[in-house]
């Protein structure tokens, strides 16, 4: 069994945790309406008013004028995310984080020690609740696909177990939009075929699926039968670590994009350090209003996990890109990964480098953010974005 754990309204819940007086009130975490900010997260009170993440803050505030808007405190979320991951780590080393608030766990090797997957999942959910004061929605299934759907079905504070033999009957009535990789375009094709549910997808001949969807067709067809062979890949074995954000409204302001890129860089480098990895290739990804994507990458002289070094590389890549259109998605990633212990042969530097000074800074920042809850430490330019909000 694979476990998928998804924190409920994560950023907003962390804010409620730190400011309990806000409980029960509608909360939006995100950029200010005046600076054309976007909702990064909203608590369930706010969601009832129709607010959802990636919505422009201005629109959210029109829907719910009494909503309280708070700036994004990424360093604090990263800190809590590490604490959650530490709880996972008690039960299995095979953890694949998808983002700060979401992860897959493979507990097949731990069942003898800690009981069934279901028992482990219940304990993790309970420990997150009692130790951190946060709720998570948990899904269990025979593979990643089933587990992920399951965790989403009963949010918030959900717990959905799909027993192996019920996998097909669980999937069959679900709409096609639950299939991975089904966006607007794919959905339109299904509409034309009159296909609405997973059961209908799996009853189509695979050749038809391939005709309409190319290589992707067979994959969709397999998913609809509950077949998903992707393993849970722990970060230490990952080939790359990356993060991306899709905007509700396309953005063409370079400054705003840079601030977003810095948040992503902090998250990626924090994950690198947490996984004790160093990366050499830095990649920038941009998707434009017309859905065309470009990626730009650079390979550094030596692997790093230092935020500043990654930031310099990715911000330079960004500077070299001409934005002929507005941007709908921005992402950054690091690949060409090595584990820290591979750094046995260390080349000394001629000049006091950013690396040696910044490495000390990162270590300190990680330590502070791990030890003191509220004294969040992060880079000034992402503060500036919240300050002028």
């Amino acid at each position: 069994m694979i476990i998928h754990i998804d924190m409920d309204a994560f950023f907003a819940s962390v804010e409620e945790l730190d400011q309990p007086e806000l409980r029960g009130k509608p909360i939006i975490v995100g950029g200010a309406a005046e600076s054309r900010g976007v909702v990064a997260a909203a608590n369930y009170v706010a969601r009832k008013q129709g607010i959802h993440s990636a919505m422009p803050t201005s629109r959210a505030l029109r829907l719910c004028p009494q909503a309280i808007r708070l700036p994004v405190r990424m360093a604090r979320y990263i800190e809590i995310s590490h604490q959650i991951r530490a709880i996972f780590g008690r039960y299995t080393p095979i953890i694949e984080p998808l983002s700060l608030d979401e992860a897959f766990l493979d507990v097949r090797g731990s069942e003898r020690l800690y009981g069934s997957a279901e028992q482990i999942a219940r304990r993790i959910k309970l420990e997150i609740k009692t130790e951190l004061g946060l709720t998570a929605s948990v899904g269990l299934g025979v593979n990643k696909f089933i587990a992920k759907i399951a965790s989403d079905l009963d949010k918030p504070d959900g717990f959905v177990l799909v027993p192996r033999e019920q996998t097909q009957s669980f999937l069959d009535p679900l709409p096609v939009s639950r299939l991975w990789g089904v966006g607007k375009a794919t959905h339109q094709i299904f509409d034309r075929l009159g296909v609405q549910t997973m059961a209908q997808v799996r009853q189509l001949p695979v050749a038809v699926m391939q005709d309409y969807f190319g290589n992707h067709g067979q994959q969709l067809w397999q998913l609809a039968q509950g077949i998903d062979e992707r393993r849970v890949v722990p970060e230490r074995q990952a080939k790359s670590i990356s993060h991306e954000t899709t905007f509700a409204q396309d953005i063409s302001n370079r400054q705003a994009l840079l601030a977003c890129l810095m948040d992503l860089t902090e998250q990626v480098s924090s994950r690198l350090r947490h996984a004790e990895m160093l990366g050499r290739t830095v990649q920038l990804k941009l998707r434009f209003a017309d859905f065309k994507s470009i990626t730009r990458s650079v390979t550094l002289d030596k692997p790093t996990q230092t935020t500043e070094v990654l930031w310099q590389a990715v911000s330079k890549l960004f500077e070299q890109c001409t934005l002929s259109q507005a941007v709908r998605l921005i992402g950054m990633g690091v690949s060409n990964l090595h584990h820290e212990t591979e750094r046995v042969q260390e080349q000394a530097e001629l000049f006091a480098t950013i690396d040696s000074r910044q490495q000390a800074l990162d270590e300190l920042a990680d330590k502070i953010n791990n030890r003191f809850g509220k004294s969040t430490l992060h880079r000034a330019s992402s503060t500036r974005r919240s300050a002028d909000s």
Partner: protein
Amino acid sequence: MNINIQREQLLKPLQIVSSVVERRQSSPILSNLLVNLKGNQLTLTGTDLEVEMVAKLELMGNNEEGEVTLPARKLLDICKTLPEGAQIDININDDKALVKSGRSRFSLVTLPAAEFPNLEPMEEPFEFSMKQKDLKHLIEKTQFSMAQQDVRYYLNGLMLELQSGKLLAVATDGHRLALSEAEAEINIEESRQIIVPRKGVQELVRLIDDSESILTIQIGKNHIKVELPDITFTSKLIDGKFPDYQQVIPPSGQIVIKCDRNLLHQAFTRTSVLSNEKYRGMRLSMEPNLIRATVHNPEQEEAEEELEVDYSGDQFEIGFNVSYLLDALNAVDTEEVNVHLTDSNHSCLIQGEGENDSKYVVMPMRL
């Protein structure tokens, strides 16, 4: 516009100006060459917006003036593959160029000359001159130490320091450094530093030879320009501050190991067989009159070399990236080489015996 030219006359200048044209281009015009004929003078220009190369040649016979851009790679490949001694006729009509030679005919698409990017003209350039062979020597002694794609962009080039009466070249990738100096006719009171980008350096060194002839070099605010008899080379400069190189050159030190350059190079080359791209580390153990080089790799294999040297200090060990040492030893011209060391945490200085114009500094590795 009409040009009539013999293959051999066109080929060499065409090769030179095409060399700066990058295979992958952001804009189609950059894969073209600017071809200009005025009177009997034919001018070919190639650029990648960073480096510009201009070749001039005199035509004979009847030609028709004009200006157009032609696809660089295709024109070069046509010219290369035509038989020796072929007579080439290029005729421009509207947006097509007809290239004819013997029974071969090619119709190429042209782009208007007005779209071809011009480098901004240099304002009040500073001018100096030096022997061609001295400049070549200077670059060859240092260019291998330039960084490739460092985020410290100012390291991805060669730093030239203009001093009164001499020119210094310094290259470093942050792990090792190469410095060389040569006499030059420079009238300057305060020294001045410029950084020529990597590509510019590599193109320039291919243009110049070991001759005694005098070169004129112009330095503008953002450009360097070198005029050769038939070729003009211009490169943008890197706008950045080069690190203080003097600070990292160790004093010729307390520990000096003197040995035969060739033997040392051969010994290191053999031990490096067991290193790989990820693990370039080599351990050097010094004993009186003996140096021992060892390399271990992750497969638990081991290489060891011993060499008799002139050394009378204490026993100690230090690690280096073997490629950096080999690069430096390659650049040394003399038979004897001196390796100056302080201790296992500090850089080493490599200099040819009696070769005072060049220095190589390599930082150690912790193994």
